[in-house]
């Protein structure tokens, strides 16, 4: 119907991104685009560009004064979340259960998670691809095939300046701040027990930041984000 040009895949991707930002896609199409954003840097970059291009059109909507209740509701919801984030004794108990599971079995689960996907559908598996925020190039994969250990697997070998180190962080949707998972050597696989954290959840943030040797002095990320991604549940 449209003359010329639109058969080009990059053109199609760009129109899809544009329609996503415009808002004309159906609920299913929107969900499909959203699911692709984390793993398709080109699509994400196209969406980002459309967000920037169209942003000023938001000024066409007449401002509307919120009811006096709205801020109080927001404030209350945040307070409630803050309480939930702190681990309670309940999940320490659950941890005790996890500890009953054989360590050898866990290691095998981590190594063979993909193979086990089909044979143990009851376990939740997570996968995260960490990409460089600047060029969206994947650098690491985080793989978790049980709720208490994750493996960080390098896809290449990053250059880290002398006196600096990569630090690994994670943050669940409802957490106040990221938590350090330790220091990572470029090009080397790294395994982390998640014993002090709540179980993994979908859309959990993982990132590697560049910090001074020895790690962030503040306990929070201070350096630039080198790689970032969110967990997706693998069925």
């Amino acid at each position, binding site marked *: 119907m449209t003359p010329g*040009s639109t058969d080009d895949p990059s053109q199609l991707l760009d129109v899809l991104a544009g329609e996503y930002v415009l*808002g004309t896609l159906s609920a299913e199409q929107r969900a499909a685009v959203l699911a692709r954003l984390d793993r398709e840097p080109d699509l994400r970059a196209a969406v980002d560009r459309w967000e920037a*291009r169209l942003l*000023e059109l938001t000024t066409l909507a007449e401002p509307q004064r919120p009811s006096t209740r709205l801020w109080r509701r927001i404030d209350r919801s945040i307070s409630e979340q803050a309480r939930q984030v702190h681990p309670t004794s309940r999940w320490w108990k659950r941890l005790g259960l996890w500890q009953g599971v054989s360590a050898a079995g866990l290691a095998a689960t981590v190594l063979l998670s993909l193979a086990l996907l089909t044979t143990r559908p009851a376990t939740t598996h997570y996968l995260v691809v960490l990409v460089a925020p600047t060029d969206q190039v994947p650098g690491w994969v985080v793989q978790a095939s049980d709720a208490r250990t994750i493996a960080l697997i390098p896809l290449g070998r990053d250059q880290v300046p002398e006196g600096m180190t990569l630090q690994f962080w994670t943050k669940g949707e409802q957490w106040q*701040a990221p938590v350090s998972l330790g220091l990572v050597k470029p090009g080397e696989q790294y395994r982390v027990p998640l014993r002090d954290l709540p179980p993994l959840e979908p859309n959990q943030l993982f990132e590697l930041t560049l910090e001074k040797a020895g790690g962030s002095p503040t306990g929070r990320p201070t350096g630039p*984000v080198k790689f970032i991604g969110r967990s997706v549940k693998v069925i």
Partner: protein
Amino acid sequence: MNSSVTPFDFQGCLAACARGDRSALQALYDHEGSRLLGVVRRIVRDDAMAEDIVHDAFIRIWTRATSFDATRGSARGWIYSINRHLALNAVRDSRQETTLDDADIVTLVGEFDEGAIWSGSAKIYRCLEQLQPAPQRCVLHAYVDGCSHAEIASLMGAPLGTVKAWIKRSLEALRECMT
């Protein structure tokens, strides 16, 4: 309703939220809340639903402030896109296609044709002006009013396929114009 906005440090505000500074979120709400609510209200066309969505959006801004990445776009854009996409998700999930009440659409035709709204200095307005009136209205009904293809078609009395083609071509033209 455009311009004359006192400079507000959106990026600094997100950084403060990421550090857990709740007064920064409140400052954002005080500064931008009514504009965000206006954008969301226009899309969902319901006061209570609009406030629910802005509530959810602020929670999301708070919990995800640490993941804001300035290399991907502006902090202000990030905040607006969270609000808009929550609103769009809500209407696409719940609103029946084609059940469009013309009274809901705030006499858009006249409003969008007034030269006054183009006084915005942003490049997007100059590029929109170069589109034909019908494709131009499609873009605005979609972005500003949150209309689906089918809703735009019924609003404009045009076949669905034509509307889809107008939008596709408009996007191509806008991209060309804005690069």
